[in-house]
């Protein structure tokens, strides 16, 4: 068991009434799964992903990550978990504009205090693997959207995380680029990386091993 959510509730209060963002969510994820979270806009996909990624808290329920309780985690432990286990891929790529492709991919390794020689080897591996060696000295602004997302994924992978969280990873890409990215995810998953993605696209969902449907913050078991 990689992680488990039990009866998770998350709400905001508007005009004296509770509006539920997440309503009684139960979910267990085994290592090696490729899970797709689907649902219309506002159904809570991103919120759920943020909770899993510990970017966001919740009001009620229990969350175990590798048998560790996450409900009351401190910032320090959280950044340790990020460093060790989790890689993020964003719809807007979120590369650091001031850093080159090479340096962007290197950054998580810096935070892990990995030695310079080892860093070089790891980053070179990634550049090789994603065929972007020729672009390593370019800045994000000089790349196309698809290329930026490749760099984003390379950066998420370089620290060898157990879990990749991807929020609409292809949302800003055209269909050819999308297909490339999804095939890459499938390959990674085959290599043993757990992936959880949120998406609108049925095609993308097809790459996953399991799909969870959300509607108004609840799991929609009807589909």
């Amino acid at each position: 068991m990689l992680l488990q959510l039990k009866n998770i509730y998350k709400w905001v209060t508007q005009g004296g009434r509770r509006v539920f963002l997440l309503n009684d969510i139960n979910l267990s994820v085994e290592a090696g799964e490729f899970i797709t979270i689907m649902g219309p806009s506002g159904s809570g996909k991103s919120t759920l992903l943020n909770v899993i990624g510990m970017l966001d808290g919740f009001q009620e329920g229990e969350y175990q990550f590798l048998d560790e309780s996450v409900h009351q985690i401190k910032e320090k432990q959280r950044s340790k978990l990020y460093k060790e286990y989790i890689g993020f891929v964003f719809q807007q790529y979120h590369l650091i504009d001031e850093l080159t492709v090479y340096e962007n991919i290197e950054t998580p390794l810096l935070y892990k205090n990995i030695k310079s020689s080892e860093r070089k080897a790891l980053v070179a591996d990634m550049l090789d693997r994603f065929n972007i060696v020729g672009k390593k000295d370019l800045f994000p602004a000089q790349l196309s959207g698809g290329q930026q997302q490749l760099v984003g994924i390379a950066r998420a992978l370089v620290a060898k995380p157990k879990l990749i969280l991807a929020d609409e990873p292809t949302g800003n890409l055209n269909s050819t680029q999308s297909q490339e990215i999804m095939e890459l995810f499938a390959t990674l998953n085959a290599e043993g990386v757990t992936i959880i993605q949120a998406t609108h696209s049925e095609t993308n969902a097809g790459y996953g091993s399991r799909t969870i449907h959300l509607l108004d913050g609840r799991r929609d078991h009807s589909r």
Partner: protein
Amino acid sequence: MIKNHLKIAWRNVVANPMFSAINILGLSLSLAITTLLFLFIYHENSFNEMYTNKGQIFRVTLQTGESYNNTVYANAPAMVGPTAAVEIPEVINALRVYKHGFGDPAYIGTKNNSFIETGLYYADPSLCTVFEIDLLNGNKDNALKNPNTAIISERTAERFFGTSKVLGQSFSIDDNKTIEITGVFRDLPTNSTLDGNVYVSMATSFFSKNPSWSNASLETYLLTTPNTNAKVLDKKMQEMLDKNVPEEGRWYSLKAQPFDQVHLYSSHIQNGYSSRKGSIDQVSSLSWLAFLILIIACINYMNLATARSQKRSREVGVSKTLGASKSSLIRRFYTETGLVTFISIILGVFIAILSLPYFNKIAGIEIPSDLLLSGIFILSLVAIWLVATLLAGSYPALYMSSFSAKKVLNGDKGGSFWTISIRRGLVVLQFVASTILIVGVYVIYSQLNYIQQKDLGFTTDRVVAVSINGVNDQNKVALLKEQLLQLPEVTALGAAQGYPGKNVSGRMIQHPLEDDGGLAVQTNRADAEALDVLQLRLLAGKNLPSVKAIGDTLVEVVVNKRITDYLGYEPAEAIGQKISMLPGENEYIVGVVDNFHYASLREPIGAYAFHNLASEYKEFLLLKLTVSDLSQHISRIQDRFQTVVDAVPFDYSFMDQNIEKLYIEEKQTASIGMIFSILAVFVACLGLFGLAAFTAEQRDKEIGIRKVLGASVLGITKLLSIDFINLICIALLIAFPLSYYIMNNWLQEFAYRIHIGWTPFVFTALFALLVAIMTVSFQSIKAALRNPITALRKE
């Protein structure tokens, strides 16, 4: 990691040229100012550090009683030093110093040349022991033992003789004494209170022949055993007075002033001989100025950094999901600030070095440029750098590192109520500081202007004082007068012991009826023409008689109104009354003049009298000229002067400049303050400019939508500017009472002063608003004129 931080920092600097330029320009200007002011403060505080005995040296000051206005003087009677050395066990050695002619220049004659020397002193042989002055040539122990010997500084030796090998050479003083040089000393440093170029042996002077307990003219220094307490010395000096001086002669008490306080804490002490007088007030007000300016620049940096944080916040969020801890982000932002302040400080020091000569000139000091290379200066630069980095970097580092990753990545633009409030608060703070500076400078200038415009009660217009101190032959003086009067531009000419703005002789007037101790009076030996030249307003009676018969023992006196008030007469009643001012003389009041400001406007007007008793020399000729362009005609006067007395150098001063010299410290503070205030306002405006640019950028979309909905350019400009204008108004409201309080305090120093009306405030408000509106509206108009679609397409 630090390399990575620096890399990001550097790329950020390069990627935003405008904001980096604003930041670096603002910071480097302020750091240049801080550096200069620091140098000044350091230089002032380093005064007399080179004298290793300084902790054991005390200056004897003399405090007068009630009837002499409780004045403190830097001079003591000639008997004090030698007696203290014998009678007070703690005193190892005593040194008496007397400046030639109470500060009037000496006329030096060498074989081939004549010179004016303003740094000629008479000193006891203990000079070289008390202050450890090493002689390059000559024997330190007996260099000043004999009459008519002197030691001379290296530079002065070169000036007089063209060489520093002058042992055994001689020169004359005021054409009547011949002095042999028995030693040459290294030039005294610029941060030494001792500023003599020539020290003549005290044995040469009048005072060693006639030492008294009453004539207080000698600056007296006591070298004491270690750990001697000033209080103990005070007590023992009182005992010494009680023992040696009969009670009626004890019109003063003596106080020991520790030598390390002499430079900065002597503004209340009169008649110190040194030309280098510091003031702790000036040092502290300039320290505040340096601090304010540094704060303004740091706030700039904070504001611009946090305004940009909206863009930077994404980077923070991403870094956090990549495992960056808060502390590593704090380090990163500090690194970035450190880089910017480092560039700024290098630039700032460069600016400071270039402007040091001008600063020296304005401030009237001599900061040697090698101070810039000293270890202490480098060290303090590092300190300033650290302080600026910590100060400027604190807010961005702490604020931005605490961004939550989720909020930022989900496109929350930040800019919460708090961050905006803090940014506004900082802008307000900045303008409060600038406003105080502007009001302060305005008030100082108004006061100086008031002093210049004020009717002093006499005229300084086109009056020149020519020194005839070196002319000993009275026939020559008469000839000189005659010759000068022949010049067409000279309309009147008088002679006097001194002139307003210059100390003359201090005496006492006894009240005929009451025994109240008397009234301290300044007496000036003058002739009738001198009073005419000064155009004093005669209230009653007549001027001094222009011709005096030989053998006439009557002394005529013209007094000011302060004296008749004291004696209880109406001006007209006072004419013909006997007065007791000059001991043992037959003196009568012949005229009463209106009060006039013979001293600085800091002091209330005291008693002043002109008389014609030959008790003092008439040291000056006062010339009234017809022409306004004085400097051109001076050479003609000089030619005439030299044809009569060629051995005496020509020394003159313009009366209006003499009066201005009384306010030199205020002038200096005002000019330094003005330049720096303008820079401070400029730096604050740089910040405002940057902030306005960011606001415009941030409200980009809003502006686009408003324009699509039909808003006018003017409307949008107003919308964007009004926020800032409000902030400036708040700042003005806070700053006005503060600055009123501060400046009103400052004005208390002057017995005659302006009232702070509403003008400085209206001026400052208009100025600040105008500058702010111009700064902000430039950005606002630019934003308002943009095609809305460029803004809306972005999303």
